[in-house]
């Protein structure tokens, strides 16, 4: 017979791809299972850009603003109170109860979050995590504009956990133009 059926003239030139396809399919399945497990996240809110055509009303005088700050060294502050890593959760719970008690007049508890530009992002994230730890009920508002740092006084917080009187913290949202 004159038919050439190969394999007689040296090694075959094409490789057997069947095992390769098997491996690729297994990898595909592994990644399909892993992909949804990847990204975890913390939801925060950013201030809404004020509508310039509408006059901006000043906040009511009894508004309780809670401002959480992370300073350059990574220390946490709430309004004028400095927190340690150990007591931060407990103190934030006190603030949360204070904010929650005013929910009927002021809406759900909101905490404004700000960190120094030089603060490590890891510390800022730890601060956000601590806030979430103290209560899942907080609405976290991110401040996107820098504060005038000298604006806050040094009014101490009474030991009962009553937050300082309003008006001592700078407005966390964009001030009226």
């Amino acid at each position, binding site marked *: 017979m004159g038919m050439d059926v190969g394999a007689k003239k040296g090694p075959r030139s094409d490789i057997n791809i069947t095992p390769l396809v098997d491996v690729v399919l297994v990898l595909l399945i592994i990644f399909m299972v892993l992909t949804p497990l990847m990204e*975890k996240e*913390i939801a*925060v809110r*950013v201030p809404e850009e004020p509508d310039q055509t509408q006059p901006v009303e000043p906040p009511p005088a009894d508004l309780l603003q809670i401002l959480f700050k992370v300073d350059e060294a990574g220390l946490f502050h709430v309004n004028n109170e400095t927190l340690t890593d150990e007591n931060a959760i407990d103190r934030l719970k006190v603030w949360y109860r204070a904010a929650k008690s005013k929910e009927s007049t002021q809406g759900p508890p909101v905490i404004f979050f700000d960190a*120094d530009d030089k603060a490590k992002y*890891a*510390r800022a994230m730890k601060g956000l*995590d601590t806030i979430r730890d103290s209560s899942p009920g907080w609405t976290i508002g991110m401040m996107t504009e820098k504060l005038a740092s000298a604006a806050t006084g040094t009014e101490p917080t009474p030991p009962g956990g009553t937050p300082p009187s309003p008006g001592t913290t700078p407005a966390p949202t964009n001030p009226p133009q």
Partner: protein
Amino acid sequence: MLQKGKSVELPKAKNAMQNKAQGPEPLFVSVTADGKVYIESDKQPASPEQLVDAMKGAIAEGKRVMVKADVNTEYGAVRPVLDRASKAKLKGVQLAAEELKGK
């Protein structure tokens, strides 16, 4: 691990939760350790205008915005991204984190 967007080392957080909400894939904005901002997996750092445009596009498509910032960066590099999100009239963003196991 396998990540969307640029490869960064994510901070760890106890309270990070998986977002179960179904919807389109979020827009990924990455802040690398040297403070550069990237949209999705772009090779070049994004300009502020590009960032705002990309975020507006995300709103138009109903996408969320996921900010992935490196754990070693400074907060000053992340703040402008949040500011742009505000300028683009986003209601909120997601900060990517890795789940802290245990405790």
